[in-house]
């Protein structure tokens, strides 16, 4: 009994931190309508900055709490700087650009933090005066955690007062509902938004700095917390503070007790909980229907059209590529094989984004499922390569069939969050289920059959399979299926009213895209000879998005060009430096700000002007 009570209390302490971070995220979202992927970075840097300050000044209670406050304020200032430098330019962009742009910040911050504090985990000192524990029904419980538990409701109360009892709070709530009308009443929205980012990021920094006495400060804490905070915000209802509080409490308990019951799949439980909540209450526990994020219309300036000689060009390209082994060396062939695989991966995501208007933030799930499908068939069933390769798209397609049923119920940002959640579920299974997947050791020894073992042979096999799949995807885009998908993208209501079952077409597209990505993943597994959980992780999904964005959303050829450029950049440029995250992050930010139409879109715009 007393053990359960202490477990519940430690769940409350977790919930307090979770609430501090997610309250900031939900406030920022409520006003700016931007899901700030970089929110976790402010948490992480807040922890690092807090660690440094506490090491120096944290010997006394005043020094400790002063350090925590200073770290929080510093994160607020950084958040305001990010609003001025980046977010301000993204308010009218489609959500894909907002998510990617802020993810670029995540990458940049990761490298800058590693540069400033080094790669080792840091252990901070305990809070002076709160080092001990008290006995609760004969079980020891840390005093510091008790303080945290009290801090959650205290911050909720202060935020409530700020938003309901001050002029600034009233203006923020007004701007949340109607930005234009608020500015027509003489309120400068830009300054208001900068202030909101200050507040939101200061809360994240506060949460981070408060973690210093509890756990090690690491370079991985940013993405881990932001994904959890996403779940809290989505479960609570996006933009709702009380909802975030409630969801934090629930998820804190779920984690505290989940670890007792299913220690292997604690991560999965949280995401499953979110999926269930979203199906039962589509707007979250306390969210409201009118708070559906008004997704910026995807600016389709140039409708997708079949190029006049597309077929001829494609055949010519295929012929040139098929001839490559005659001149290229082994290394070049390996690179080309990967480019072809990634092209299929990117094209499958493009089917969802470009045609369906569905921004998936978890497309790596299907790529990785394909890869793991093949690897598991080889490892556990000793399957020969052709069978294992055939299993890849089947497994991924089945996964997408299940996940798609949930995901296509929502659109816009919620869709992105749901796909992210499913990718995290699959990732955590691969990461935590050691017995089957090998955990982070991955699965090794996934080699092609003897007849395809040569670099050239495997390259031709890849080219044939991916070429065929790409041709099918292109056929689908210009078939009635593709038209229906685009109709649903441009106007769901109008499409419904002429008898198109939009949701069903989106579901089919989801499965098709998942299957194609699965094939790419299977080929990738045999190309590399191994699979690791990173194939399913968020950065892999982002890579795919960057490839699509690089190539341009409005062209079919875009993802192919994007995959080629991205992979060459990754393997040739970024491997030369230890700071590849910094480079990639800056590339992403530049893409989002300067080349929103991608390479192919940019070139064709250039041609049209010339």
């Amino acid at each position, binding site marked *: 009994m007393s053990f359960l009570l202490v477990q519940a209390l430690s769940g409350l302490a977790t919930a307090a931190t979770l609430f501090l971070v997610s309250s900031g995220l939900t406030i920022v979202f409520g006003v700016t309508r931007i899901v700030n992927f970089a929110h976790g970075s402010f948490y992480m840097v807040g922890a690092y900055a807090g660690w440094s300050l506490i090491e120096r000044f944290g010997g006394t209670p005043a020094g400790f709490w002063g350090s925590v406050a200073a770290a929080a304020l510093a994160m607020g200032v950084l958040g305001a700087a990010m609003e001025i430098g980046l977010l301000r330019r993204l308010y009218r962009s489609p959500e894909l650009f907002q998510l990617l742009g802020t993810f670029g910040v995540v990458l940049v911050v990761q490298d800058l933090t590693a540069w400033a504090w080094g790669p080792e985990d840091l252990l901070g000192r305990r809070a002076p005066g709160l080092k001990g524990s008290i006995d609760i029904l004969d079980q020891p419980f840390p005093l510091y955690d008790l303080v945290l538990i009290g801090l959650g409701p205290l911050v909720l109360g202060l935020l409530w007062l700020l938003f309901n009892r001050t002029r600034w709070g009233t203006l923020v*709530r*007004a701007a949340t*509902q109607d930005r*234009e009308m608020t*500015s*027509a*009443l*003489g*309120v400068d929205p830009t300054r208001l938004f900068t202030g909101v980012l200050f507040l939101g990021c200061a809360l994240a920094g506060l949460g981070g700095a408060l973690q210093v006495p509890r756990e090690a400060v690491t370079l991985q804490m940013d993405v881990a917390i932001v994904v959890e905070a996403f779940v809290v915000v989505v479960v609570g209802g996006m933009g709702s503070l009380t909802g975030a509080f409630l969801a934090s409490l629930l998820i804190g308990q779920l984690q505290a007790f989940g670890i007792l019951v299913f220690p292997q799949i604690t991560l999965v439980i949280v995401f499953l909980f979110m999926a269930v909540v979203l199906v039962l209450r589509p707007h979250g526990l306390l969210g409201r229907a009118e708070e559906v994020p008004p997704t910026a219309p995807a600016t389709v300036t140039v409708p997708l059209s079949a190029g006049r000689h597309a077929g001829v060009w494609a055949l010519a390209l295929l012929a040139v590529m098929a001839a490559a082994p005659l001149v290229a060396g082994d290394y070049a062939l390996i690179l080309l094989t990967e480019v072809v695989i990634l092209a299929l991966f990117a094209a499958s995501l493009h089917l969802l984004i470009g045609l369906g208007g569905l921004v998936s933030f978890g497309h790596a799930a299907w790529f990785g499922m394909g890869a793991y499908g093949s690897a598991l068939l080889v490892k556990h069933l000793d399957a020969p390569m052709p069978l294992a390769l055939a299993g890849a798209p089947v497994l991924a397609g089945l996964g997408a069939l299940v996940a798609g049923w949930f995901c296509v119920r929502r659109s816009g940002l919620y869709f992105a969050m749901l796909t992210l959640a499913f990718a995290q579920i699959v990732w955590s299974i691969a990461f935590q289920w050691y017995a089957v997947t090998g955990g982070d050791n991955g699965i090794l020894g996934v080699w092609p059959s003897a007849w395809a073992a040569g670099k050239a042979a495997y390259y031709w096999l890849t080219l044939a399979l991916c070429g065929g799949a790409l041709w099918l995807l292109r056929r689908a885009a210009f078939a009635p299926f593709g038209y229906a998908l685009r109709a649903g993208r441009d106007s769901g209501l109008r499409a419904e009213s002429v008898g198109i079952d939009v949701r069903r077409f989106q579901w089919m597209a989801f499965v098709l895209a998942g299957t194609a990505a699965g094939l790419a993943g299977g080929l990738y597994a045999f190309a590399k000879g191994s699979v690791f959980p990173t194939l399913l992780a968020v950065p892999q999904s982002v890579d795919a998005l960057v490839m699509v964005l690089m190539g341009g959303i409005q062209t079919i050829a875009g993802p192919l060009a994007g995959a080629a450029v991205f992979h060459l950049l990754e393997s040739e440029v970024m491997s030369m430096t230890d700071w590849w995250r910094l480079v990639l992050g800056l590339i992403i930010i530049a893409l989002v700000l300067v080349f929103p139409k991608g390479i192919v879109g940019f070139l064709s715009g250039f041609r049209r002007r010339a």
Partner: protein
Amino acid sequence: MSEALLTVDGLQAWYGRAHILDGIALTVGRGEVVALMGRNGAGKTTTLKAIMGLVERRAATLRFDGRDLSALPAHRIARLGVGYVPEDRRIFADLTVEENLEVGRQPPRPGAPAWTPEKLFTLFPNLAEMRGRRGTRMSGGEQQMLTLARTLMGNPSLLLLDEPSEGLAPLIVKQMADAVRRLKAEGLSVLLSEQSLSFASAVADRACVIETGRLRWTGSMAELMADDGVRAAYLAV
């Protein structure tokens, strides 16, 4: 004659690629009520929005009280003393009546009547009884009154009033006309867009008639009432 309070000349406006306004010119003198008349889709709302800086792309000579408005964002225009009352009301539904008024509050400015919530509650007695009520629980007429009161909290010297009588019950329309006349008596200048000839004739000194984004006729309200030809050409439905 001294310079008009508001001078608009050669006003052009676009939505995306659609050219909505083409060369609208009008003036509003101090203490004057001008009605912008025209059928649905003539460009009345866009004209008011363009003056307020709420249209993404526009070009014009826009002078207000000796200042150039053409390059200013909406909040700066509002702070100079231009009050905008949208046609679709757009009250902040999650905020109470008092909070809605608070959002509109700006410091008093010389040459314009100064408003407080108490003073506004005497002008709109209905609102006084529902200070703590949220916008979601108000009737259309009450919302329209609140929108006007909220803008007045900014102590404007010029009011841009978009279709004040649209969709309101006859009794409320009459209250609205009374309110506009009171505001004029307080020294406010008003540019209102209107489809209803009876409402316009009850409050306006002059009228500008537009159709398909161009200015077609301008003159005193009395002249418009006397000119059957203009009314038939541009206003009759």
